[in-house]
Structures are given as structure tokens and as C-alpha cells.
């Protein structure tokens, strides 16, 4: 890669060229935000191995700039959705195709007063002042270089506002479809959810790809959860094996707020979910859980950062993964307790099962603590299935592949059982069973090839 390896800020030129034509261009603060993103990305460059948070996830495949920003509005219908139990759920449905909201595919009827679920591009034009106090306020661009690039491309995505004390009657279901067509396509969607005091809502995200060429999906989601508000957030990432899927979520919690996140990653050549949670008010409570499944040459990365910036907050994390083929798994999780954040309770668990001799796992749990009255812990394990347990089941007449599947399911169920919304839990369980069915019984040993 004579050219590619020297290009330290790929896609920046594209952003600078096209962003003046985007919604909101000419509005001072919007221009300033995009420029700040571009500047931050210029200063930092595309993440490399030297960046602690990108140590194990190599983005060199992005350097050659072969991905072109998706052109507007490819009109496609809604492809079949995975997980009938999730897609069958009554919901406010908002659909993105190639990073742009497709009003024709959305189902947003019957929104209660005080609730707005819409396309970000629309408000950027119609009422940018409504976005100004929120957009770009939670995400820390210098800590997330790819979010900086996304900000330079900021154009469209989902925007949700829920006013004080409103309990949303149905979940919001964000369906994001990447349809690359023939070429190599890039999308840079930006989502924003603003929950006012005491509001409650559930957000479900389904990320899938339509058949076609390769794609690069660089998503940023900002979530603001005000005093005593509650947000449940469930994400399914099932993109095609020719895609690079990078998702950065930043969530700010005020006093007494609750945020629960579950991420199931099963797709993409490179799939990364980075969540940064800021517990800014006393008594905030945050749960980040996830399951990842990888095989072939996939790389799947879960990175979390939780900042306990106020006393009496709780954080809880359980991530479990299964790695077959020559896949690589990454888990990095940091719990940061700032000075004065007394009575913090921070727990984290990361476990990985290696199903094949060529699979690899890299784990970096991290504690950074500046307060003494805290209870913080992390645990991490990696290894293969317990052969004694397999033998126990086989000796009772269960076939080897079945025994292995049962044990893997049991291993993952600890994380899945954390999901508070039942249909989602069921949908994700079914997905795991199907994945295990097609990846754990191919060879006589029951190992994925």
C-alpha cells in the first residue's frame, strides 16, 4: 500500500468537499460543529495501533479511501428482518437506508404529545435551534477519532425527543440497512436521543446489509438521559461479512437516571461497538452487556468506558463471546472513578470461549480509581469449552455437537438473561441458537471450520 499507508486522514477531503451541501449548512453552530469534527480528526488521524483504544483493531483497510459516500435515496423496499419476535413487536419504526431516513418505510403514527421521533436532517433544516443544546454535547471528539470523522460528515440519522415524565407506550425500532450496490460504499449516520426528566423509553436497533459490494458504516449515537429518566437500549449488529461496522455511542446520565444497553454483535468483517457512559449525577445506574459471535476472519470489538463522575452511582457490565474459525475478539472496558465519586459500585465481567485453534482473544479490562469508598472489580477469562462438561453430557447419550451447543448456550445465557425486554431476549436467543447450529456442527468434532 504505497499510497494508503501514508494517508493518515482518509475520507477527510471527501467530508470537506461535500459537507457544505448538507442540511444545516450555513447555520453557524452546525458549521462550527462539523469543522470541529474535521479538525479533531485531522489532529488525531485514523486510529492506529499506538492508540490504546485501537490497539487490537486495525483499520488499515480503510486507508485506501475506496469507500465512496453513499449517494442519496436508493429506493429499496424493506428486506426481510431477522428475529420475528423483535420485528413483530409493536413499535415506532424508523428506517435508514444508507444512512438516510426513508420516510416511506417508517411507521411513526400515533406519537403521543411531547414525543418527537424524526429524521435529524429534517430538523437540521426546519428547527436547528432545537438540536443546538444537544447535538455534539455528549460525544467527546478527542477521545473518539472516528466520531470526529462522523461529525465532519454529520447530515442525517434519527432524532428522538421525549418530554418530561412521558412513558413511551411502544419501543422505538431503528432499522438501519446498508445497501452498497456494486461498489464500495460509506455511510456516516448520526443519531440523537434526548430524554427529559422522568421520561422512559426503549430503543431497539437492527443493523443489517442488503447483498452487494463492501461497505463502511461509521455510526455515532448520542444519548442524554435526564434526572430519573430511563432508557433501555438493545442493539443487533448483523451486517454482511464484507462490511466494516464502527459504532460509537456516548451516553450522559443525570442524577437517578438509568441506562441499560445490550449489544449483540454477529456480523461484519470488522465490527466494533464502543460505548462511553458518563454518570454525571448522584445515583445514576448503568448496565452495559453484550454477546459477540464471530467466525471465519471476522474481528469483533467491544469497547466500553464508564466514568463515575458523581457519588453513589452503579455500573455493571457482562460481556460474553464465542470465537470460531480464525476470528479475533476484543474486549476493552474501563471503569473510571473520579475524585469524590464515593460509594461507587462498579462491576465488570468479560468471558470468551475459543472454539477453534486459530481463534484469538484480546482483553483489556481497566480500573482507574481516585476515590476510596468504592467497590470496583473486574474479572476476565478466556479458554476453550470445559472438556469434562462435554464428556459428562456425551456419557449421557447426547451427541458431541449437541453437547457443545448446549454448553455454549448455557455460557451465553448469563448475559442474555440480563435483557429486560422479553421479546428481544427471545429474538437474540434464537439468533444465537441458529448461529451455533450453523457454526458448531460442521465438522465431526463439532468445531467451526
Amino acid at each position: 500500500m504505497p499510497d494508503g499507508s501514508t494517508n493518515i486522514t482518509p475520507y477527510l477531503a471527501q467530508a470537506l468537499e461535500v459537507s457544505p451541501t448538507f442540511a444545516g449548512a450555513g447555520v453557524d453552530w452546525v458549521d462550527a460543529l462539523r469543522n470541529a469534527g474535521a479538525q479533531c480528526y485531522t489532529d488525531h488521524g485514523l486510529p492506529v495501533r499506538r492508540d490504546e483504544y485501537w490497539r487490537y483493531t486495525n483499520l488499515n483497510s480503510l486507508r485506501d479511501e475506496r469507500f465512496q459516500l453513499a449517494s442519496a435515496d436508493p429506493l429499496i423496499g424493506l428486506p426481510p428482518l431477522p428475529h420475528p419476535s423483535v420485528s413483530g413487536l409493536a413499535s415506532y419504526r424508523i428506517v435508514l437506508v444508507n444512512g438516510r431516513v426513508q420516510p416511506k418505510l417508517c411507521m411513526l403514527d400515533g406519537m403521543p404529545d411531547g414525543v418527537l421521533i424524526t429524521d435529524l436532517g429534517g430538523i437540521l433544516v426546519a428547527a436547528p435551534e432545537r438540536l443546538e443544546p444537544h447535538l455534539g454535547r455528549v460525544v467527546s471528539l478527542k477521545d473518539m477519532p472516528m466520531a470526529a470523522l462522523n461529525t465532519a460528515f454529520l447530515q442525517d440519522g434519527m432524532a428522538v425527543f421525549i418530554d418530561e415524565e412521558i412513558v413511551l407506550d411502544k419501543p422505538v425500532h431503528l432499522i438501519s440497512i446498508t445497501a452498497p450496490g456494486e461498489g464500495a460504499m460509506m455511510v456516516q449516520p448520526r443519531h440523537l436521543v434526548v430524554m427529559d426528566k422522568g421520561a422512559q423509553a426503549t430503543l431497539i436497533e437492527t443493523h443489517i446489509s442488503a447483498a452487494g459490494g463492501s461497505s463502511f458504516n461509521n455510526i455515532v449515537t448520542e444519548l442524554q438521559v435526564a434526572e430519573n429518566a430511563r432508557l433501555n437500549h438493545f442493539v443487533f449488529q448483523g451486517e454482511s461479512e464484507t462490511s466494516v461496522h464502527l459504532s460509537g455511542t456516548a451516553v450522559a446520565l443525570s442524577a437517578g437516571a438509568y441506562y441499560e444497553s445490550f449489544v449483540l454483535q454477529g456480523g461484519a468483517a470488522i465490527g466494533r461497538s464502543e460505548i462511553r457512559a458518563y454518570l454525571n449525577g448522584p445515583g445514576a445506574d448503568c448496565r452495559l452487556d453484550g454477546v459477540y459471535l464471530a467466525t471465519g476472519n471476522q474481528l469483533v470489538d467491544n469497547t466500553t468506558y464508564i466514568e463515575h463522575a458523581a457519588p453513589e452511582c452503579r455500573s455493571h457490565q457482562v460481556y460474553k463471546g464465542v470465537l470460531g474459525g480464525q476470528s479475533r475478539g476484543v474486549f476493552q472496558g474501563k471503569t473510571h472513578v473520579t475524585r469524590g465519586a464515593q460509594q461507587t459500585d462498579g462491576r465488570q465481567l468479560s468471558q470468551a470461549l475459543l472454539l477453534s485453534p486459530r481463534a484469538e482473544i484480546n482483553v483489556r479490562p481497566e480500573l482507574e480509581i481516585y476515590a476510596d469508598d468504592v467497590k470496583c472489580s473486574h474479572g476476565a477469562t478466556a479458554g476453550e469449552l470445559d472438556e469434562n462438561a462435554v464428556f459428562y453430557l456425551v456419557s449421557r447419550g447426547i451427541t458431541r455437537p449437541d453437547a457443545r451447543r448446549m454448553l455454549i448456550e448455557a455460557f451465553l445465557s448469563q448475559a442474555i438473561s440480563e435483557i429486560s425486554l422479553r421479546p428481544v431476549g427471545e429474538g437474540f436467543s434464537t439468533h444465537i441458537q441458529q448461529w451455533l447450529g450453523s457454526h458448531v456442527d460442521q465438522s465431526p468434532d463439532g468445531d467451526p471450520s
Partner: protein
Amino acid sequence: MVSNTEAIDQVRSIGDQYKYGFVTDIDSEFAPKGLNEDIIRLISKKKEEPEWMLEMRLKAYAHWLTMEEPTWQKPKYSAIDYQDSYYYAAPKTTEKPKTLDDVDPKLLETYEKLGIPLREQEVLAGVQGAPAVAVDAVFDSVSVATTYKAKLEEQGIIFGSISEAMKTHPELVRKYLGSVVPYGDNFFAALNAAVFTDGSFVYIPKGVRCPMELSTYFRINAENTGQFERTLIVADEGSYVSYLEGCTAPQRDENQLHAAVVELVAMDDAEIKYSTVQNWYPGDEHGRGGIYNFVTKRAACRGRNSKVSWTQVETGSAITWKYPSCILQGDNSTGEFYSVAITNNAQLADTGTKMIHIGKNTRSRIISKGISAGKSDQTYRGLVRMQRGADSARNYTQCDSLLIGDKCGAHTIPYIESQNWSAQVEHEATTSRIGEDQLFYCQQRGMGDEEAVALIVNGFCREVLQTLPMEFAVEAQKLVGISLEGSVG
């Protein structure tokens, strides 16, 4: 809560309790200040080194010049002016001392004051009936005395200063020096390779179990000197050695750099137990002065069934920055790391270990206990890597941190990398403080604050302290009490 605050105040008022802060007034010979090829040639000449050694030093120096000082570590320090330091300081002697009686009495007095027995009948820390310990005493840049040499030689054990070994056993030194920590390894290892002045060399021949503990005692005395010592221990097939390292320095307002390199090599079925009680001057309660302890320690378990065990009790130094590591190359080899690090006042520590599993059935165990008090800041940083060929390897890691007071920090940064599915890795870390109820329980039984804290902290570190040789365990337990004196609850 009241008792906590009181205890913390107490610690502040007590301030510095460093017992070893005195300076020995002794005539020393210095090489001129500064670092350049001439100084390196001078050091090499003073030591009457063979030509290959000088070449290695110059290569290391040339490489060092191309390197950048690392910045990734947690403790930040003000820039070190490498030209404003003496790289060679030695007590002046007209002639090499032949027996202990020829050694400058002031030196002997110094070691007596430090509790280090240079008379062969004595023992460490005043423990009656404890087995004898052979000591190599390093004062500033040179080794001044080695005890029990004759007795060890009977079994073919070589123990003494590395400069001497270069003359008496050049083939051994040349074969192993830099084979575990090459000069290009890191910034401070390169600096050390260029300017190291002395250190200990140990060779245990095949099948020999070293009959006594070997020990080196490092003392920085002169002002404006860095101490760069180099230790090399080679345990040949089927041998065993237990080695202790201790260190102190006078109380001074400026920071002094201690950049040592320790290399261990264990062949088939050999075992090395390396224990450190590090008590360099930690600086005063405002963080003025103290030693920068930037050390590279690494063991190569080259042989099958070899074993290396690192135990460290780190209570001193303004900044401690080191990762004693094991490269588990031989099948069935074992690496262990037991660490207690105590930081108080303004001390900073970034320490931990690396376990690189290369061979089959390799095992490693990491137990790290960190105690932060005052305004100190402490980081455990560790790496466990299971390489592709490390079939059925196992690692167990436990890192516990104890925070005393609300002004200190405790951080844990483990890296876990596994490329082998049959390798099992387990890591656990916790952070907490001394429970109110634990303190209350002790106080209720008539213990004072300090006593209760020392008891609880000693209990917290017990797993590690138990692995020290007996003489050191006693000293280390006392040291834990002193380092935290009053400190807390």
C-alpha cells in the same frame, strides 16, 4: 469516618520516617559529569573491561541516542537532564581490598547502620538462628565486598560483582549478558547497557542447590549520581538459587535516577527465586526528592520444567516503574509474580508483570496487592500473552488494591492476549478500602488505629509476604507497618 480522618491527619503530621536517609561522609572518586562516549570509555577502562564489553556499551549508547524517552506510563516526571549527572562514583581506595579488614571502616559502618551483615557470622534483620546469607554490597557505582565467596566456590557457584566476573569468567558473561534484555529493549535498558558500573553475577552449576540465600545490597550515597547496576543470574540444569535484593539511599531534595537491569536465565529443571525489598528514599511528604526507580527485570525460562518466581515488596522510591517479567519458553515452565506495593504521601508507582507463554503446558501465577495512601497514585499494569504454541498453558491473575484516604488513586490495567484455544486465562481484580467494620472490630478489642491498620494491611498482603524468605518476611512486615505509619484506615 472520624477515625479515618484522624488517622490520615496523623500520617501527615508524622511526615517522613525514613530511617536510612543518612549520608556517609567518604572520599569518592567521580568521573566528570555528563554522558558521552568518553565517559563510557572511561568507565570501561576503570573496570578494566575486555574490548567486546566496550563495543557493546558504545553500540548501546549509539542506539540510546536514537531513542525517545517513553511517555505512556502513568507517573509523569520532570525531564531528566542526562548530562547533569555523574555516571561513575566510587569510594576512593588506594588498593583493592583483599579482606574485609581492608575495607574502609566508614563503609562497614554504613552497612552496619543499614543492618546489612558484611561479617560472615552475622545474619539479616537480627533474626536469631536464621541461615546465613551471602551478601554482595554495591556502594554507588561499585561492589565493595562479597561475603561467603570461598564457601560458595567449593560447590562451583560463582557469586560476586559482574565486573570481576567479566575478568574471571568472560565466556559466561559474554554468553548471557544482554541475552534476556537486549540493549535495544527500551530507553532505560539502553542507557543502562551503555553506562552500567557494577552489579552482581551469579552462576549456579548443573545440579547444585545453592546452600544459602544470595543477596545484593544497593546503596546510593553520592549526590547527583545515577545508579545503573546490572544483575545477571544463570541457573544451569537442575539447579536452585534464592536471591535477595535490598536498597536504600540518603535523603536528598533532588531526584536521583536508578535504572537497573536484571536478567535471569533458568535452564532445564532449574529454579530461581528472586526477592526484592525496595526501600529507596521515597521523597518527603510534599514529593520533594526521592529515587526514580526505573528498572527492567526479566527472566527467561529457557529450559523444560524451569521455574522463576519474582517476589517484590515495593515501599520506597518517589517513582517506581518496573515490570519484572517471565518469558516461558521451555515446555512446562512456570513463572510467578508476587507483589506488594505501598505508596504513601506523593509517591507514584506503575508496576506489574508480563508473562509471555511460548512453550506447552506453561503456567503462570500473578498475585499483586497495591496499597495507596496519602496523595499517592499507583498503577498495576500487566500483560499475559498466550502464544500460538502455548498448548494447555494456564494463567491465574489476582490484583487487589486498597485505598487509604480519598486523595490517592489506584489503577489496574491488565492486557490479556490469547492465541491458543487450549490456554486458560483467568483474571480478577478488586478495589476497595479498609472496611469501617474491620477497623471497628480491631479497635473494640483494644487496638490503636495504627496497629489495627497494620494488622489489616498485613493480612491483605499475607499471600505475598509468605513467599519471601524468612529473614526478609520479618523485615517486610515491619516495613509495611512503617510505610503506612499512622497512615490510616
